[in-house]
């Protein structure tokens, strides 16, 4: 008999055998867990939920053969189950990359137009640049039957994508303001007008945070003075500048993500996409202290658009994903998590009541009063004038 403790060689052999056995077992478990629910097109078609349609065979087979799907989107926004569900169902690994803001994401494409993403969640400004640089694929509408079925007609041929060629709308955000009713009386007669944000510092005591985004802040200021937020009129922009300069001493900070400060009570009023604060309100307790304000004369509308960059390797997976996302139950999961507005016609009964309250402006037809940022605001003279105002504001 040999002594196990003393014989190093034997110990090593035992250790290695154990390790190999463990790795083989882990590999088998992983293979079973990671195996896609649908392996063939036939299985996929058979598994489609009621009311939904499958993508064509060509799209499915190309997407699955690609094995991975490169996605470029916001971090910690959409619920993880959307991504995990897709991976589980089709066995396609989603490789995610996140950006802190869309301007930074656009800068990445500006430096390398062939950046290999299959799917990018973006806004009209970036869309315009990408279209002009000719680095976007057109969406194949035959490959997204669920989108064709459920996407509202009024958002299909919208101002940001005339002809409905490059985008699929995923959500619609209203960029206005939110007040913390723990500190601010929700019955103040100026709420929800812009007047409260731009003149109500006697009430909010300089605890205002504006977004650190030039076009949005100047756009909403133009809206406050009764102009189009895409105005390029120097006089109107000069007026907007005066308003902002007057407001600056009452602005605590320019911060696009002030959620920590909002939760801490450091900030009482915040300019930004109103929907982002529902989740914070839920965290604050049973009574949501945050009140979304939809100014009666409209605000900036921020559509989130899915686009397919040309540099990607698996555009079929992008179509498969969009078709999957537009299944009513999946889309409801998304909207119940982010509380944004949307253009899906099939999830009315699947949406939580609290979310409905947040994502819907109080007035019918409010969307028509809102505007989307269009090229005159962020190109040429309009951009130059806005940059001048922004730079003066930061001096």
């Amino acid at each position, binding site marked *: 008999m040999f002594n196990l403790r003393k014989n190093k060689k034997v110990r090593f052999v035992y250790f290695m055998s154990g390790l190999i056995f463990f790795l083989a077992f882990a590999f088998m478990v992983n293979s079973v867990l990671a195996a896609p629910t649908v392996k063939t097109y036939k299985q996929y078609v058979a598994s489609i939920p009621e009311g939904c349609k499958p993508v064509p065979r060509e799209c499915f087979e190309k997407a699955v053969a690609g094995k991975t799907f490169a996605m470029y989107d916001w971090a910690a926004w959409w619920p993880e189950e959307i991504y995990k569900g897709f991976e589980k169902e089709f066995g396609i690994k989603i490789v995610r990359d996140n950006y802190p803001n869309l301007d930074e994401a656009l800068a990445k494409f500006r430096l390398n137009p062939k950046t290999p993403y299959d799917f990018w969640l973006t806004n009209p400004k970036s869309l315009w640049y990408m279209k002009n640089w000719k680095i976007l694929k057109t969406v194949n509408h035959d490959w997204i039957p669920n989108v064709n079925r459920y996407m509202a007609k009024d958002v299909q041929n919208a101002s940001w994508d005339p002809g409905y060629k490059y985008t699929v709308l995923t959500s619609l955000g209203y960029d206005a303001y939110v007040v913390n009713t723990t500190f601010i009386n929700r019955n103040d007669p100026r709420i929800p007008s812009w007047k409260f944000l731009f003149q109500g510092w006697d009430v909010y005591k300089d605890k205002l945070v504006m977004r650190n985004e030039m076009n949005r802040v100047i756009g909403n200021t133009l809206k406050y003075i009764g102009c189009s937020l895409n105005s390029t009129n120097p006089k109107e922009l000069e007026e907007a500048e005066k308003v902002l300069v007057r407001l600056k001493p009452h602005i605590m900070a320019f*911060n696009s993500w002030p959620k920590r*400060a909002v939760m*801490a009570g450091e900030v009482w009023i915040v300019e930004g996409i109103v929907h982002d604060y529902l989740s914070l309100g839920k965290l604050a307790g049973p009574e949501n202290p945050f009140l979304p304000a939809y100014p009666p004369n409209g605000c900036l509308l921020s559509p989130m658009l899915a686009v397919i960059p040309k540099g990607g390797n698996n555009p079929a997976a992008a179509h498969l994903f969009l078709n999957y996302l537009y299944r009513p139950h999946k889309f409801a999961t998304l909207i119940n998590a982010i509380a944004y507005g949307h253009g899906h016609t099939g999830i009315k009964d699947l949406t939580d009541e609290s979310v409905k309250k947040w994502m819907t402006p109080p007035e019918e037809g409010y969307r028509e009063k809102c505007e989307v940022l269009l090229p005159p605001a962020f190109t040429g003279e309009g951009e130059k004038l806005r*940059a001048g105002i922004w730079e003066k504001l930061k001096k």
Partner: protein
Amino acid sequence: MAASKTFMKIKTNLQLLPTVGPISIWIFLFVFAPVAVIVFISFLAAGPIGEILPRFSIESYRYLLFGGSEYGRAVLRSILYAFVTNMVCLCVGFPMAYWISKYGGKFKALFLFLVIVPSWSCYIVRIYALKQLVGYPGILNNFLLNLGFISSPINILYTPAAVVLGLIYIWLPFMVLPIYASLEGINPALLEASLDLGATPRWQFFTVTLPLTKGGIFGGTILTFIPALGDWLVPLLIGGNRVWMAGNLIQHFLVVRGKIAMASSMAVILTAAVVLLIYMFIKLGGEESMERIV
């Protein structure tokens, strides 16, 4: 004879190659090459929709230098903030280093460890730590409120003073260490000699200790002034982005406006200013300042 000398020189250089070669390649690839790319882009023209055109142009430099006073103001503000940061770091860092060196005794290593340990954590984590400390309702405000010194929380964050405070907090250890190294390097015999010759402790400090730590002071100055000059995260997170430094302007050009050539030109101007400052510091502080940094 001359040929033999040349041969020996080449031989010595070849012997040094295995040690100096890898670091030279590293410096070339990750320092000089990126700077060269930035300089190259800064001299390119920009198209109507922000694309870079392969055409020589000095338009970005012209725009930055003569286009508006805001840009010059941001650079001057950066220099001012970096200067104040540097002076405060020196005023706080020198006594700290002096005390550790002279009175630290067997706990010197522990005190140095305490100075260094914050810089082991991520830059952003340190900024958020400071925000928790001085923010609303932060530790400092709560402390002052509980003591009754203030009746409502004071607004420290999101002011120019907060930006300078943040820069000091981040860069202070980089001032303490070179000064400490200088102080430790002073020959005790020199200090004893000065006392023997009748110097008072104050006179000894100003005529012996301080001149002998000149290298450490200049080394610390380089290590704090230059990064503070180019910082953009502190004004963004602690200053609430209400006032820009030069780094924020570069970010604004590159990210918000998509003017890559202009952002590169601004970076080149800032780099040139930094190189000039390093040259001046080395001239004033001598080669010892560089040794302290290394």
